[in-house]
């Protein structure tokens, strides 16, 4: 768990100078650690994609409500008028 935190701090540039030195030392002692850093970076990429996917789904659900529910009709017409030809 400390290792995960140490790598997180390294990825996000949040660690202290001592943390960076510790990570360097651990990398010398255990070269396989560089692979763990690689996987953890990929994990962050995937977490970000997951977050975006969920957020976009929430936004789309708001859009659907605004453009389909009768209560929002005046808003909908106001927007659609902007795209009317002529």
């Amino acid at each position, binding site marked *: *768990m400390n290792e*995960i*935190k140490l790598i997180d701090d390294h990825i996000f540039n949040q660690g202290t100078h001592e943390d960076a030195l510790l990570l360097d030392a651990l990398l010398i002692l255990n070269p396989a650690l560089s692979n763990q850093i690689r996987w953890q970076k*990929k994990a962050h990429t995937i*977490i970000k*994609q997951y977050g975006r996917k969920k957020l976009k789904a929430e*936004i789309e659900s708001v*859009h659907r409500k605004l453009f389909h529910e009768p209560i929002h009709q005046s808003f909908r017409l106001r927007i659609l008028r902007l*795209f009317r030809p002529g």
Partner: protein
Amino acid sequence: MTLYKKAFPAVAKYVSKMGGSFDGAKDIFQDALVIYYEKTVSASIELQTNEQAYVLGIAKHLWAKKFRENVLHTSLDTYRDDIMDEEDMQPSPAKLLHYLETAGQKCMEILKAFYYDNLPVNKITELFGYSGVRSATVQKYKCMEKVRETIKEKNLAYEDFIE
């Protein structure tokens, strides 16, 4: 919904003026909202007093970029950060994401709360019903370990496969 109602009209008006369609305005606006959210939670911007103007600014930037590059679906990919640029990714993140969504939904939700939504740990403790801040933090690291291991296994299996 409030921000959508407040900010979408200005973006739609701009895109319409620039000759874009309703669907084009919708895509640009939704991408702009995602970027605005990410900037807000990562504290790289102060909370805006005029958030509509800020979202419109992002949308104009996205539109200009799209227009310049003449690419229909540039959108969020242009905002990839260093982590995403790190190296080529095989197997594709989309496939891994699909697998992780199915096999470890709870962990993905916890990690999203910590890393994407940047929620404070006490809020996460409450949201997920943990007994305390410590168990929420332990769970975060356990989940990261699990996701990391899954990625490692899938990547190694893929590398074996293509060799």
